[in-house]
């Protein structure tokens, strides 16, 4: 392994590990902005009214990993700590790194050790003489854990309510291609898909019945206003955490999309997406403050005011993307795109 930590604070704990594993394949660091290109939005209710899906990603990341790098992410789940350890050692024995998951409560290097439970992922890059070398890129930690320590972490994590299985991920390259930077057709495709999704289309892997793009703001704000009416703390904080995690991931996606836009020379549009990133993050911060103080009524107006700013910014983007696509796909293509994907028709 030619490097230890990959420092990127704006990828979630799974994506940052996938990025690090890709860099070890290797792929060019300059190509990563083209991978994390999605800046969409969808909301979906579930059977449980306290659970819902809120995400900026309308398409599986694996599609892009294949298209850009000729690689794929192999994932397998394990129900036992020993089998998990064994699989981990097998992957490491091939000279590749592996991505593992664990309850952060049991990870000594984190600020949440013995304090809070939630799912986390990190990369393991080596194993020698009973000692694993770990890279927790998300928390900027490079260190070691022994067989016994890892066994305890895995067995304990499997007792956590959010793990029925522990997943193990590793990358395989099946085609020697695409270590470079993609072409203009790829750029147009990315922007066109983001425009379509934000115009209200549930694309690719969006679940059936989801509300896409700007249409997602209505159910999101409905969930926000619902929080003050909920008596059961467990339900209330569960719904709040879905919103909070969703907002942060949406913010991350806008940040990554700003990197994509900078990479293709669209600096002004990139700057606007950076402002959107920041605004989503402020909404998340306000929500966290409301939850910490258990004062959702008190914070509601502030959160909704910020959501209004966020929506206005996202609506501005829709128009800027439409103009970009008109310039990039003029005449025939542009007209059919405009007719087919008008934000007013949402068709």
């Amino acid at each position: 392994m030619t490097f230890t930590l990959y420092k990127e604070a704006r990828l979630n704990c799974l994506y940052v590990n996938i990025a690090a594993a890709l860099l070890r394949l290797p792929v060019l660091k300059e190509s990563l902005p083209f991978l994390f290109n999605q800046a969409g939005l969808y909301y979906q209710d579930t059977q449980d009214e306290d659970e819902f899906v809120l995400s900026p990603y309308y398409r599986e990341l694996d599609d892009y990993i294949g298209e850009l790098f000729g690689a794929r992410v192999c994932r397998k789940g394990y129900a036992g700590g020993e089998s998990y350890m064994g699989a981990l050692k097998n992957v490491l024995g091939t000279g590749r790194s592996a991505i593992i998951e664990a309850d952060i409560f049991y990870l000594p290097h984190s600020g949440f050790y013995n304090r809070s439970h939630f799912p986390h992922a990190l990369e393991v890059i080596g194993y020698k003489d009973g000692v694993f070398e770990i890279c927790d890129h998300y928390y900027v930690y490079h260190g070691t854990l022994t067989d016994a320590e890892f066994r305890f972490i895995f067995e304990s994590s499997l007792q956590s309510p959010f793990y029925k299985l522990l997943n193990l991920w590793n990358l395989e390259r099946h085609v020697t291609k695409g270590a470079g930077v993609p072409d203009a057709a790829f750029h147009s495709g990315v922007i066109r898909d983001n425009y379509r999704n934000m115009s209200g289309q549930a694309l690719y892997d969006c679940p059936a019945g989801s509300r896409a793009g700007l249409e997602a703001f209505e159910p999101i704000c409905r969930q926000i206003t619902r929080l003050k009416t909920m008596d059961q703390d467990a339900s209330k904080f569960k719904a709040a955490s879905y919103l909070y995690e969703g907002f942060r991931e949406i913010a991350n996606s806008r940040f990554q999309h700003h990197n994509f836009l900078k990479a293709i020379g669209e600096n002004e549009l990139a700057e606007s997406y950076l402002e959107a990133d920041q605004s989503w993050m402020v909404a998340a911060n306000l929500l966290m403050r409301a939850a910490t103080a258990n004062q959702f009524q008190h914070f509601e107006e502030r959160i909704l005011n910020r959501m209004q700013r966020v929506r206005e910014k996202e609506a501005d983007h829709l128009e800027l993307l439409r103009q970009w696509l008109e310039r990039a796909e003029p005449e025939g293509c542009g007209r059919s795109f405009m007719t087919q994907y008008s934000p007013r028709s949402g068709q």
Partner: protein
Amino acid sequence: MNTQPFICLDMTSCLNNCGTTDNSSYQHGYLSSSGVSLPRENILFHTPFEFNDIPFVLFRQNYRDNMVTEGQAIQFPEARISKIHVLGASSDVNMSDYMYLKHNETLLSKEKMMLSHFASEAPFARNVCILETAGLNTLDGPLAHRTGRLWLDILHLTEPLEINQLTFEDNPCMHIFGITLER
């Protein structure tokens, strides 16, 4: 009339957050929503200091040492200002938002303030690191392997303005530790 080139604003009445702690006060830290704070060692409070020839004074009262921007206003004696030096940091991400320059409630200018994250290693290009700490504090004690930072952002006005009030957006991610106005 005070004609000193710099005015260090007294932030005492605006302090609403604890961003620095020592080993007796970890539990008060709230620079981030998880209770992270900067180690207070080597940070001067109530004592003027200079950075790049610009004077600053940081204030602290009852554990509070910074102002989280929540739509409040800071008022001061009228002065003709050409630059505003802001010392602070953001939580969550590198953050920017607007500061409104007013004279008696009349809005004269809207300026974008940019403060990088308190642990950022990829700050805004225009921010300068004014202070680095060895480690960060959590509710449980020090995280020795991390580095904390306070940043300087300089807002250059397109023309000097006679102002007596600064108003901020409701953006609790932004923590302002000190403001110096330059005539």
